């Protein structure tokens, strides 16, 4: 979709919000305006993700055409840039089934990199039920999946998404998405909790001067993965267009829609980000427990997740080109009912962002995220912990917001009505 139609959508929203601001509009109308804007922001975030992914795809073309330090660096920079809007969109998970159903294709993590390419001997070759643990598709045009011969002579987007991704029903067999591309651009980070990211040489893609073998197949894999990323993101842009499936679903029922916003905020804050992506790493002091582990970009991914969570509440988003979007927000909806609660929510979101920014600053100036979670690094651990604490604390207020808006009962308990197929015995 072009920028022009986005402006059109925003204009429509202005009208909606004008009536919302002006009249004694019913609460349902307010919620509808909030949801329309929520969907417009989703569209903008996925469109920015798509455009930055296209730039990444172009940079990958350049790397493959003329492999050099410069073209590799440019591709890495494009990847880092592409992560910004995508991570800010993650708050649309956990409440929107359309997004949940799709997400695993683009951001699945962690991955067993041995499936894709050569790995260091220290990676281990202990075989396992995951027979594809060190399958190394790039080096092996023929492999077996579940005892069946698979022809990997041609590495195409379809081969990655249909055959290789989650091969053998093993979730670690991640073949597609940002992290597969990240691994190919950076290579393994063999520095443990010491300084340094992955350090793949551009010659891994240089068919004339090839290092580590199979440079043509490695390039083909990288190109297939970036092509797939672009088409997958296009799917989400379409879904969040004004008449797209995701937009229609979330705007269909104001109460359920508002509930979806808050579910996404709460689930991403607490279980996903504070828990799985951050606390586990601090708990185990394991550098493998790092979200962007090849590129050492984890700090930025976490920060942008937090920015996205705040955005879902405030209705504000700064686009990749710097344009600022604002509109009817959940914050206004809460303020109308309980101004103190709205102030508390905003304060807590801001506090988390402060902690996240401090963590990101430390990553850029002192030590990388995987060093911060290292054992015995009290200051680094504490920096990460402060962000975790902020996320957990803000979720408590999210729960209070849910209670205050009287939304809690819809999804969790259902009604006794026999007409409702989701009814449960109580």
């Amino acid at each position: 979709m072009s920028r022009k139609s986005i402006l059109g959508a925003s204009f429509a929203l202005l009208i909606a919000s004008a009536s919302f601001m002006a009249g004694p509009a019913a609460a349902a109308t307010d919620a509808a305006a909030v949801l329309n804007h929520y969907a417009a922001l989703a569209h903008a975030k996925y469109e920015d993700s798509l455009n930055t992914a296209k730039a990444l795809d172009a940079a990958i073309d350049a790397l493959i055409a003329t492999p050099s330090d410069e073209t590799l660096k440019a591709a890495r920079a494009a990847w880092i840039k592409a992560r910004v809007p995508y991570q800010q969109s993650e708050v649309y998970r956990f409440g929107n089934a359309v997004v949940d159903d799709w997400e695993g294709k683009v951001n699945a993590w962690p991955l067993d990199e041995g499936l894709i390419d050569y790995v260091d001997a220290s990676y281990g070759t202990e075989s396992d039920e995951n027979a594809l643990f060190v399958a190394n598709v790039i080096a092996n045009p023929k492999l077996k999946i579940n005892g069946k011969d698979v022809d990997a002579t041609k590495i195409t987007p379809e081969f990655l998404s249909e055959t290789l991704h989650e091969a053998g029903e093993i979730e670690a067999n991640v073949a597609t998405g940002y992290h597969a591309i990240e691994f190919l651009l950076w290579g393994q980070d063999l520095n443990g909790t010491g300084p340094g990211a992955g350090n793949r040489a551009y010659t891994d893609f240089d068919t004339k001067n090839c290092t580590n073998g199979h440079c043509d197949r490695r390039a083909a894999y990288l190109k297939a993965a970036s092509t797939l990323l672009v088409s997958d993101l296009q799917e989400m842009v379409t879904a969040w267009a004004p008449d797209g499936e995701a937009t229609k679903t979330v705007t269909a029922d104001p109460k359920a829609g508002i509930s979806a916003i808050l579910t996404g905020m709460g689930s991403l804050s607490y279980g996903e980000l504070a828990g799985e992506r951050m606390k586990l790493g601090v708990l185990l002091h394991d550098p493998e427990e790092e979200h962007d582990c090849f590129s050492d970009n984890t700090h930025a991914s976490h920060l942008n997740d937090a920015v996205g969570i705040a955005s879902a509440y405030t209705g504000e988003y700064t686009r990749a080109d710097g344009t600022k979007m604002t509109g009817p927000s959940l914050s206004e909806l809460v303020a109308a009912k309980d101004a103190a609660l709205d102030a508390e929510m905003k304060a807590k979101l801001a506090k988390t962002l402060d902690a996240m920014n401090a963590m990101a600053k430390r990553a850029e100036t002192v030590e990388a995220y995987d060093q911060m979670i290292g054992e015995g690094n009290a200051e680094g651990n504490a920096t990460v912990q402060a962000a975790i604490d902020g996320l957990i604390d803000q979720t408590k207020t999210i729960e209070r917001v849910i209670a205050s808006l009287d939304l809690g009962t819809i999804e969790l308990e259902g009604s006794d009505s026999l007409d409702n197929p989701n009814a449960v015995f109580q």
Partner: protein
Amino acid sequence: MARTPITMSRMTARIPRHLLLATGLSFAALGAALADDAIRRTDLSPKDLKRVETVTNPTRDFSKAEPFERMQGGAATSTQPVNGDAFSHFSSNITFSEEETFKLGNALFRKFWVSSPSSTQASDGLGPLFNARACQSCHLKDGRGHPPEGAADSTSMFLRLARPARTEDERQVIAELKTANFPDPTYGGQLQDLAVPGLAAEGRMVITYTEEPVTLAGGETVSLRRPHYSVADLAYGPLAPDTTLSPRIATPMIGMGLIQAITDADILARADPEDRDGDGISGRGARARDHRTGELKLGRFGWKAQNASVRDQSSSAFKGDIGISTPDAPHPFGDCTEAEAKCLAMPTGVQKRLGDTEAPDPVLDLVTFYSENLAPPARRGIDDPAVLKGKSIFYASGCVACHAPKFVTSRKAENKAHRFQLIWPYSDFLLHDMGEGLADGQEVGDASGREWRTQPLWGIGLTERVNGHTFFLHDGRARNLTEAILWHGGEAQAARDTFTGLAVDDRKALIAFLESL
């Protein structure tokens, strides 16, 4: 009776005298609290009790779906879109903070443990002998394992090893459930086909099949494959001559916290060990020792109902399958035996400063919570005429005598999300003699070599969607639901024979019903 299970005659209000005699010792050990809870529900008001009785009564109306039937895990049911992740969603009714616990558990569930010593000291301790490096390696997509297909194959199945009691003293040890059975003196409780570098794996499971045709009404022929098991490449000498091999595939992970929340009374009310009602179906409760307290409890998890709790099932798997010690099973050498001296000489992953075990607290707590909160998926097509027809046949054929449709969980369940939920697992969680065809000849506690716990059926229709196969039964010998039904024998022989006599359309309808679960 040679063994002494917890048993209850159907619908009795007090413990029958003959059972008190037969199980005197075990009941004394169970203590008054469980004995009381085993007789009647103590968690409900009289009014609730009435409601529960009404709602759990088997339906007689197959013209339409029952109320609440779609949500087969009650409020915990997942209504997420049906895809390959259908078994991987958390209970819909847990809190944000519990979601965190779930996700930390999930991360540990899929974590690849590494051999010691390693730079990541919190993640090492694998083996020395093991079947898998991660929970998820066998519980693929939180679903069902499968037998090997082809030579270079990923597997999610192993052989349990045990020998029967040899002396009267040993028989007494099992009768008192001091142990569930006796491991092979050399290879231990299961055959680990993998080992850390520098150590030989124990051996390799070998399966061969012979095809046996069965003819159904209408002339359709189905071929059943009868498996034969042996072990090749034994690295530590022969197995004991009386060691039996019991193949087991990994079971689906859904709904286990809800199963745990079913009251003992509701399960034991269906037991009928003497078959007093003469329907040819007995059903016995299996006793199991709580790993931490040693108390006798009602077993309900595992193919032989050998564990009373999800936590016990999990610590057993950490120890036997991955070789990781936990506070509940603190042996860092996993299943190594004295006869495997080289195994016992390998480094372990215990780091004193982190705790006394390779997976110190809170690892087991987190994995347990995760395992208790994988949501059963909502049913599909409950109003479909073929599904309703199949359901009526399922009831009329006697399948529900063991595959009990519904329970209402305890109001006293530990986790709020599991309390007072109407659930539809289609199992009675009792032991049944399944006949010679399915017998593995291996006793486990109260379970004889012919007995198996009734498998829950919820989610079974999504097996292909989630796991890409339709291998069923304890060793995956059945290649589809029809074959699985045809393998039923023993107490289920009559129901199985009814199935073979059904008209083709009726058989199809029955399968359509199962696939809607």
